[in-house]
């Protein structure tokens, strides 16, 4: 079966884990890995896994985009270089899946709004953050039942699973995730807290999601909505599990959950890595299915 050919930009934890996910996809094929350090472990691993590589950043990829028919690129670099990467690749008709906190394009949480992004043929969609992918589906599960004035999420991540890019730019993570709790989750005010936990052995990704509803929460409907949403996320992240809740205390609805990864690149505790790469892969697959069926066509964008 024909597959859509993909490039991966950024050879760190996320980029490397993406290779495994994309290789398993029935509609995607990883072809290029782009890095900036010729000696990087990530590039060496990508070569071993059969990808073409360049250490010259996105400029090293551009001359090969058309001849290799690259149609989707995943950017796992940083918020600061994403804008330029996206501009250059969009100009060649490549659709961008943004795994940085840059958020130039619309924010995407697959079970909440992926379908509408695909219908609009967005050329750049942003995957928010690992904490966003893990928690926003559940904020939305509450807000689709009744209005949420405030939603707060606490994501606890194993220290070993948090790479240097995230560490150096924690505020971008906070801003992007908090904003997405509002824009995609549907809360009027959102707040995101990240805890990087160095415990040994490494802890599995744990999340606490709290929503304050405007009116008395409808326990039956909200519980049903949350359980249904967990099922939706489990379709692409099998290790997405409810630990406790929903617990109701007045207008407060709380859910405690954990995310186990598939253990592709980092061990299973790094569910935060998996939920990001799995959501990005799911997003790319939806676009790929639409392209392969001829329903949508990617077009080179005019560069302003």
């Amino acid at each position, binding site marked *: 079966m024909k597959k859509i050919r993909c490039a991966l930009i950024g050879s760190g934890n996320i980029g490397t884990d993406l290779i495994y996910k994309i290789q398993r996809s029935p509609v995607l094929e990883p072809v290029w890995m782009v890095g900036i350090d010729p000696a990087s472990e990530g590039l060496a691993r990508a070569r071993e896994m059969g990808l073409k590589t360049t250490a010259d950043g996105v400029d090293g990829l551009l001359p090969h985009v058309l001849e290799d028919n690259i149609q989707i690129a995943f950017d796992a670099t940083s918020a600061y270089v994403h804008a330029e990467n996206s501009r250059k690749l969009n100009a060649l008709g490549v659709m961008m899946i943004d795994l940085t906190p840059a958020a130039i394009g619309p924010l995407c949480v697959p079970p909440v709004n992926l379908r509408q992004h695909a219908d609009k043929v967005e050329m750049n969609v942003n995957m928010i953050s690992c904490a966003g992918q893990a928690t926003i589906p559940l904020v939305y599960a509450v807000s689709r039942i009744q209005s949420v004035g405030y939603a*707060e999420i606490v994501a606890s991540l194993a220290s070993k699973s948090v790479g240097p890019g995230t*560490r150096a*730019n924690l*505020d971008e993570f906070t801003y992007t995730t908090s904003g997405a709790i509002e824009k995609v989750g549907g809360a009027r005010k959102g707040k995101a*807290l990240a805890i*990087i936990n160095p415990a040994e052995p490494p802890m599995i990704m744990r999340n606490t999601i709290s929503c304050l509803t405007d009116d008395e929460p409808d326990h039956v409907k909200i519980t049903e909505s949350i359980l249904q949403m967990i099922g939706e996320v489990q379709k692409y992240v099998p290790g997405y599990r409810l630990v406790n809740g929903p617990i109701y205390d007045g207008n407060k609805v709380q859910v405690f959950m954990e995310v186990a990864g598939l253990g592709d690149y980092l061990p299973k505790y790094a569910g935060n890595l998996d939920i990001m790469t799995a959501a990005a892969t799911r997003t790319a697959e939806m676009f790929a299915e639409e392209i392969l069926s001829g329903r949508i066509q990617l077009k080179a964008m005019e560069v302003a």
Partner: protein
Amino acid sequence: MMSQSNSTSLKGRKVILHDMCLRDGMHAKREQISVEQMVKVATALDDAGVPYLQVTHGAGMGGNSLQHGFAPHSNEEYISAVASRMKQAKVSVLLIPGLGTMKELHAAYDCGARSVHVATHCTEADTSPQHIAYARKLGMDTTGFLMMAHLNDAEGIAKQGKLMESYGAQTVYVTDSAGYMLPEDVKSRVGALRDVLKPETEIGFHGHHNLGMGIANSIAAIEAGGGAASTARQPDSVPVRAIPRSKCSPRCASAWASRPESISSSSWTWPRTSSCR
């Protein structure tokens, strides 16, 4: 014998007292200290000559949350109310990356805060570079605050402190958040920091009094060259920052004298997650 050696090594050491009652003390009061109480205590501390006092939610910038509890007022309201009344004391704030942000730090600066503790777990200093750099850009007195310091050995603390110094921290703290350390633990960590940090970088110690060791640990810290000290009663604390040996001049401060009785409430309950810093 021992007191002889202590009095020698402590003699002439200048110590800077950094009061924590109104920040770490917030935990003991379930974050419920009023603006009026803050101003009353802060003006008394200012009159007593305490040079630095910290004023925020117990968890610092961004602390107001379901996770950490909501204070009756915003950090901006507390800081503005206190800072506008200070004759000599500088108001400081706590910023834990992942909870607080640079935007909130800027807002605190606009309200009159001029000093900040950028705090990370003692193995995660590399989550603090942008916040430390931003604080320096604002011209704030900037401290790297290594929390739960008993969970890293002296060599590890030295490495993490060196990172914070490289980001721009002017002071590095050994923070015994859990009140676990004994004087020898404090000395080894402060000593290791003193060995690797630049001579002009100050070293601080923030203790907790769980084991009744707050004062002894503070004195040990001062003694350990760099010598910082602190005293604390669980769950709040009164850290003291020490000046490098080269700058020593005689001065003495009593941390206990500055703690208001109202803070040592017996109606204190442990938050659902440990938010003691």
